[in-house]
């Protein structure tokens, strides 16, 4: 292979490697951000519903208490409703507790995104640092050698980055998860 072809092949490999690496990570960032947005949206909707329901139950209970305090006699229906209210409130509180766990999941997704962004910045930093070492007057042998080094450094960085990015949150909704006893 001629020197020119070797150089061309190194440049091509480097550019396609950078493009594939960047594209892959940005796609994952996009996926994680969309998942985070979905979870946040669902959490806000569910929490709003729970708090409104708790507010309504507490108001209804207060009306019954006011009636009792004013010397009124609650009907059998009022008494039954009052008894059922504790259970209703507890159910809404439980639902709110499940929804509030969005924070645990979204913080893991955001942490993963941050690691990825930091890794990409380091990756681009390595590319820039190797580029700085190249002089306009460098010969093609030297350029080929430098390109080989930068490709190797980027491949190592890419592997290291991948090793810290295992996905631990696959939940797409805030429904309570599976339980398995061994």
């Amino acid at each position, binding site marked *: 292979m001629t020197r020119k072809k070797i150089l061309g092949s190194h440049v091509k490999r480097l550019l396609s490697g950078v493009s594939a690496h960047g594209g892959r990570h940005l796609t994952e960032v996009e996926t994680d951000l969309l998942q985070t947005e979905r979870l946040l949206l669902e959490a806000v909707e569910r929490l709003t519903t729970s708090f409104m329901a708790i507010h309504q139950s507490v108001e209804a209970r207060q009306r019954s208490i006011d009636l009792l305090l004013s010397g009124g006699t609650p009907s059998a229906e009022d008494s039954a409703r009052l008894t059922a209210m504790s259970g209703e409130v507890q159910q809404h509180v439980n639902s709110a507790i499940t929804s509030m766990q969005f924070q*645990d*999941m979204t913080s893991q997704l955001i942490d993963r995104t941050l690691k990825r962004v930091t890794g990409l910045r380091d990756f681009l930093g390595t590319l820039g640092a190797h580029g700085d070492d190249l002089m306009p007057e460098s010969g093609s042998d030297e350029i080929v050698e430098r390109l080989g080094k930068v490709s190797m450094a980027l491949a190592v960085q890419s592997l290291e980055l991948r090793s810290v990015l295992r996905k*631990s949150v696959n939940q797409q909704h805030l429904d*309570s998860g*599976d339980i398995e006893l061994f």
Partner: protein
Amino acid sequence: MAKTILAVDDSSSLRQMVAFSLKAAGYNVIEAVDGQDGLDKARQQAVDLVLTDQNMPRMDGLQLIKLLRGLPDYAKTPILMLTTESSDEMKQKGRAAGANGWLVKPFDPQRLIEVVKKVIG
């Protein structure tokens, strides 16, 4: 006498929600911020059940379980994982480490209490 549960999670809000739910059901709850803290607290005070997260700084849940199982006092203490991890591979690792059960987050307080009651009464 109320049974004591050690809740290990690096998320303070998660610990609060677990403690709130279990205390309402009559259990004592000790909180630990990660696996290392959980191990230290388990050594200081005997607990009836350990409920641990998986992904935590300093020491993860699987490592905590392995170390607890090496302590004579915790050889048979029920240990449940409460984590966002839901893959079969991770569940198998948990089982191999000595976990007695796997609960995937988010948890529903009522279902959590039912499981705890089933395991320690």
